[in-house]
């Protein structure tokens, strides 16, 4: 829609009316500025007439200079006044549309084929507050908001070096959503940047309402449980990733920033790790790895052990499990599946319900499953305990919630139906799958596989800051290290 603006004010007004139809929030007002016919256009709710008045009309009312021609008025407004205008004026209808929907006001001048754009945004948006996830004990409490420009400013405040670059582009044919690309030009590998740019420019999405829509288009095709794209709600985390040479992608309307590339071990890192003592941070990190393994493997291993290899269970536990199994109607395997599905239903219900009612769901679930079902002999205590432990462990690493949940169910099926052979085959397949993921040229399992010697300071454990600061991690170093090691071997 590259229809250029006409010199006729009336034609331009009619064209815009035709574009936006009878939308009640599309506001136009004919005014005379310095004696020339003009028209103010804006969307109510996105832009503010008061700000327009304060910024422009009031100051113009006191000006002695009177441009003689419409073009002179245009030049005078654009270059001769102190009025804060956008540097780029609108030259066609699509420009006007883009600017109006961004919350600016557009002033059409009769006799001029360009329109003046004024930053009079006054749209309502959620203020910068603490994000819902990624809880921290110490560190910043700020989180991204839905407004892209606010998010840019949050990052710019934290990364004040000259290397920070912020680019924008649009995505989504129908929504024309603005996408922001943030990176450090000195640290980010040029190939990575080129790849991300080219993928974002060719997006086949009809609409873009959240940053997660971009994930499948940014990586390589093919199904994998784990994604090479991470996300964060915290500007501090995004800033840290930019300082590692990564690219942060922000989408207007989404408080979640995408981080590329994203490696497996980063799921177990949090900003708190760097605020607490190194020994405690290391302890917590090891806990997370253990929790991940428990969340994925424990129910399947329990079911497999109970059905196929009971010698693994300690004697006391074995008798209790045997007693419980004889007392309940379902086999252990089906019981475990049932309880896990039930937990997922409860979680989903608690998430979607209004907050006042959500607490009741938790209470009812705890009473019914935790108490009544066991006493009635429908479910057994060992299964409920294992399922509860698993659920808690899953929440320790929230960024891996989806793959862990599905993998857990697959492991239960494998262990319950095929026993240890199924568990082993499933585990091997999982290893293969996770090792096959490449996150924008970097193996997802780095530094576990392939082993990268220089990276272990902040993976399983977190070394002291004195050690970390000596050689800060940069994503570009992974490739050069791999090349060095190949040559050395």
């Amino acid at each position, binding site marked *: 829609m590259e229809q250029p603006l006409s010199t006729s004010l009336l034609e331009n007004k009619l064209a815009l009316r035709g574009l936006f139809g009878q939308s009640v929030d599309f506001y136009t007002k004919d005014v005379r500025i310095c004696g020339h016919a003009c028209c103010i256009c804006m969307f109510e709710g996105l832009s503010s007439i008061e700000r327009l008045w304060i910024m422009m009309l009031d100051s113009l009312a006191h000006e002695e200079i009177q441009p003689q021609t419409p073009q002179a008025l245009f030049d005078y407004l654009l270059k001769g006044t102190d009025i804060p205008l956008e540097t780029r004026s609108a030259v066609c209808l699509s420009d006007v549309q883009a600017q109006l929907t961004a919350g600016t006001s557009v002033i059409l001048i009769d006799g001029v084929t360009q329109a003046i754009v004024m930053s009079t945004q006054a749209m309502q948006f959620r203020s910068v507050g603490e994000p819902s996830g990624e809880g921290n004990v110490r560190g910043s409490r700020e989180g991204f908001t839905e407004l892209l420009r606010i998010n840019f400013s949050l990052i710019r405040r934290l990364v004040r070096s000259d290397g920070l670059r912020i680019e924008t582009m649009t995505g989504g044919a129908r929504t024309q959503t603005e996408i922001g690309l943030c990176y450090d030009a000195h640290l980010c590998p040029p190939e990575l940047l080129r790849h991300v740019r080219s993928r974002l420019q060719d997006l086949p999405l009809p609409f873009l309402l959240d940053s997660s829509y971009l994930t499948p288009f940014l990586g390589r095709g093919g199904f994998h449980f784990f994604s090479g794209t991470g996300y964060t709600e915290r500007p501090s985390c995004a800033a840290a990733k930019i300082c590692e040479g990564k690219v942060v992608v922000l989408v207007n309307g989404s408080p979640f920033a995408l981080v590329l590339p994203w490696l497996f071990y980063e799921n177990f890192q949090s900003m708190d790790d760097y605020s607490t003592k190194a020994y405690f941070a290391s302890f917590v990190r090891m806990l997370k790895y253990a929790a991940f393994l428990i969340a994925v493997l424990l129910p399947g291993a329990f079911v497999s052990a109970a059905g196929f*290899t009971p010698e693994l269970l300690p004697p006391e536990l074995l008798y209790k499990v045997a007693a419980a199994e004889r007392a309940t109607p379902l086999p252990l395997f089906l019981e475990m599946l049932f309880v896990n599905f039930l937990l997922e239903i409860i979680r989903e219900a608690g998430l979607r319900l209004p907050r006042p009612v959500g607490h009741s769901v938790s209470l009812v679930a705890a009473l019914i499953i935790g108490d009544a079902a066991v006493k009635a002999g429908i479910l057994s205590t060992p299964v409920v305990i294992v399922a509860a432990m698993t659920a808690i462990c899953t929440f320790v690493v929230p960024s891996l919630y989806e793959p862990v949940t599905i993998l857990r169910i697959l492991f239960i099926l494998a262990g319950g139906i*095929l*026993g240890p*052979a199924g568990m082993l*085959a499933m585990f*091997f397949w999982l290893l293969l799958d996770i090792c096959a993921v490449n996150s924008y040229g970097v193996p997802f399992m780095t530094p*576990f*596989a392939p082993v990268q010697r220089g990276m272990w300071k902040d993976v399983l454990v977190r070394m002291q800051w004195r050690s970390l600061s000596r050689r800060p991690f940069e994503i570009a170093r992974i490739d050069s290290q791999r090349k060095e090691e190949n040559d050395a*071997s």
Partner: protein
Amino acid sequence: MPHKTTVSLRQLGCGVFLCLICESLIRPMAGGAALPAYSRVMAGVLCGFAVWFLLRWFCRAAGREEFVALLSGRGRGSRLTLLLLAVSFSLGTGRSLEQTETFYRYVSAEGLALGVFLLLALAVCLYAAKIGLESLLRTGSILFALFALSALLLAAGNAPAMRLEHLQIPQEPVRDILESCVKGFHLTPELLFFGLYAHTACPSKSEGILARVLAGAVAVDILLACLTELVLGPFGAMQIQPLHTLARIGGISVFRRIDAIHVAIWLLISLFRTALLCAGLSKVLRPLLPERLREMTWLTALPVLAGCWFAYLCPIGQLLWLQTIAVMASAFTVVFLLWLSKKKGENRCSGNINEQPL
């Protein structure tokens, strides 16, 4: 960003090392620890030298550009070479599958139907062949760490039970060592991987890596043999799976049943070996197939099943010798053909093989 496949020699060495130690962990049921440790130690060292001496020529030849042409089906004798390699890998994969299934059936009270087990293992291995060697070798790095854990647990759990008096005293050392050498020597197709893939990494260093891998495998075998004899003594000679017996005995503190961990890790290593051989088979089969069938990784299952059928029918001793002959024939053919081409001064075909996910 287009991912450039890089197979480092170190990763390749790690993968081949795992395949070689699998022989020590999951014994082929041909005999237990009947041979005394001292003879196995000396025989291991001698066999290691012999293998390295035989295969270094292959590694050296495979580093040349003409070998790349041979692998891609071009050049004189390439089809014969590929066929011999395919037979070696087919026998190796079949034997590995059979060994894994036999071991699993042996250690678990609740066995799985043979067809189901083979289907499961084959599905995983074909998936591994499909995703490519680089990803498979990355898995090997993780399994190497698991193996180290298993070895540590095995040693730590059985250390209190070691008795010097269990070591057998050599009566006729020379005869025992020679007997061990003859019984224990065989070549396995994973040793050919250095030749097959070294040209994508650094061909000139593949001999050194091969030597280190063989030394490591021999060292592991020696340590396991000594551990078995020190702990089990004459009891070990009666066992078909002495290492599994060690795993069942050993425990650390209140953890008495860690044999399941050992068995799981050993089975994973065995699956890895099968998958690696399957990937190799898939690679050498591709140039032999018609163009339209080359993307069908599942076709690799057919020679694997044939190798498996052979492995179940043939006595283990004969099978090992057949495999050794196939590997020797493949290596010799490659060396001979490349020597011929060098001699006759044929036109060098230059080409790079970039490893693609199969």
